[in-house]
């Protein structure tokens, strides 16, 4: 059942990619900022997962507690960053918006190096899970199921939040027309802070969930941000359903690509991206772009 296992690992990778990319897409769609430090947040969450599981080891449910706490810490950091930095940059040049996000990723990377050192860390699979599960004759680690279920639940939650709550309506209003929303009396600032916090929380979830699989290592910030970029480009910038579709596609392409040419699985992903860019330059579910900034 090699095929079945590849599908499952494709779904696992899709869930992580979706969590990562939807936050990036959300910040860009609502605030117009391309948050390069998003990958650094992902990496920080993986390290928090390492320390969290160690510190809370006596509780018996250390991983699950970390899964709750670490993303919340990141959400706080995200909100803080918006208030201290990005709030002053919304009306600035794209160039001026980008530079602080690069600086932030340098800073976060060095803080991690300071606290945790150069060696990469491994995070054990959470306790209290059966070793493996079998569905339709496919046997795989039960933790894979946890990631996929978490991805689905968070995806549904995100959908509910954005399309079924008052907050989501305000977010969509701002994404559509910032000036008009402001004129109608929407408190943009609170929304922006919330969006940054939510995106950082999503990156935190992605980081903690992927920690038992890939550990915590310096340099994973860059891999994460590039993954998120590719998903967002394929799915369409600013579109959360697009991020979902693209995450599924890329997760599968990567999982099967590893079977064919293990070293260059990334090449298949790029081939897919190139194809999408030629056929649908704005991504699978992206809005048609007009010729202006």
């Amino acid at each position, binding site marked *: 059942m090699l095929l079945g296992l590849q599908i499952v690992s494709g779904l696992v990778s899709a869930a992580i990619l979706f969590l990562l990319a939807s936050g990036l897409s959300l910040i*860009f769609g609502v605030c117009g900022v*391309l948050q*390069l430090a998003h990958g650094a947040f992902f990496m920080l969450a993986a390290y928090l997962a390492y320390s969290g599981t160690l510190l809370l080891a006596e509780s018996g449910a250390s991983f699950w507690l970390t899964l709750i706490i670490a993303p919340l810490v990141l959400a706080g950091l995200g909100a803080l960053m918006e208030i201290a*930095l990005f709030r*002053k940059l919304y009306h*600035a*040049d*794209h*160039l*001026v918006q*980008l*530079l*602080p996000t*690069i*600086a*932030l*990723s*340098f*800073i976060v*990377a*060095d*803080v991690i*190096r*300071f606290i945790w050192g150069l060696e990469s860390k491994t995070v054990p699979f959470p306790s209290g899970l059966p070793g493996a599960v079998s569905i339709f004759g496919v046997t795989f680690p039960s933790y894979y199921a946890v990631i996929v279920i978490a991805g689905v639940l968070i995806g549904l939650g995100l959908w509910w939040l954005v399309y079924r709550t008052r907050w989501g309506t305000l977010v969509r209003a701002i994404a559509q027309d910032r000036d008009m929303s402001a004129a109608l009396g929407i408190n943009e600032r609170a929304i922006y802070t919330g969006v940054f916090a939510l995106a950082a929380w999503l990156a935190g979830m992605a980081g903690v969930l992927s920690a038992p699989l890939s550990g915590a290592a310096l340099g994973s910030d*860059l891999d994460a*941000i*590039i993954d998120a*970029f*590719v998903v*967002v*480009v394929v799915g369409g*910038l600013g579109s959360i359903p697009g991020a979902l579709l693209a995450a599924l596609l890329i997760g599968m392409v990567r999982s099967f690509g590893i079977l064919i040419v293990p*070293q*260059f699985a*990334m*090449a298949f992903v*790029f081939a897919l*991206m*190139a194809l999408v*860019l030629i056929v649908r*330059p704005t991504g699978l579910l992206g809005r048609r*772009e*007009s*010729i*202006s*900034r």
Partner: protein
Amino acid sequence: MTNTTRIGVVALIVVLALLPVLTPEVVIVQSTDILIFTLFALSLNLLVGYAGMLSLGHAAFFAIGGYTAGLLVKHLGVAMLPAMIAGPIVAALAALAIGFFCVRLSYAYFIMLSLAFGQLVFTVIWKWQSATGGDDGLTGIAPHAVLMAPNAYYYFVLVIVLLAGTALYRIGRSPFGHALLAIKDNARRAAFLGIHVRRVQLAAFVVAGTFAGVAGVLQAFYHRGMFPGSAHWLLSADGFIAVCLGGASYFAGPIVGAVLLKLVSLALPRLTEYWMFFLGIVILVIAMLRPAGLLSFLRPRGAGVRNEEVGLRSGAGQ
């Protein structure tokens, strides 16, 4: 160019020409590196400052230029000069291929794609062990016997960087450079004026990639080899930071930024192991306080800190 600037430029060139006479060899060794990096930053600013295309993958073309020259010398026994010409040509072709995908109407797509493709080039160089030597690098690329001494190679680099810099300056003031500024200002209006926006942007991407390739071959023969780090995003980011620190809307911005960044990254690691942290803080502070770059200290804020500085002032319409 005003008379004061002209005198300043001449004075700078004289100082640079006398540097080997005035300073010990250590300074020359570092200065050669700084000159090469300055050319890299200048080439990047054709995209960032003139065209408003924020590339985060520019190191790819630096590396492709250097590796091309290196591979030709090492595996085919090509002489230094033809290899130095071939490097930028291959970098230009790569820029054409990658630019085809990166040049999009939205600035955000361009940023994401340039970073992703840049890292793709890095991964290929890093993993294609049999050709590039992978992590160990491609070593044993010696320059011509005449240029073996540090001082000789310094002068060689100085001449090429000055020529390339002049070329980039001229390109910025040409009708093509003005078309880029027009697109940066308002792509839609530029399109209505009959400028083929994507074609002009692609051309800018290729020209910038070519000059990055020139910087790459200079480094290949200087370091006697090429290493995968030369394609890494950190070099792209360094270039981008240099451009922004100095000021993207000034021709001299990347020069000031490149020299400053190189000096800071030479000094900081001596003081602290965690110099990236402090570098990040410095960038953050400058970005928040001086968004138009350090050169904006010399010129008033506001309307002045826009396209005029890049060379429009003496152009038509004034």
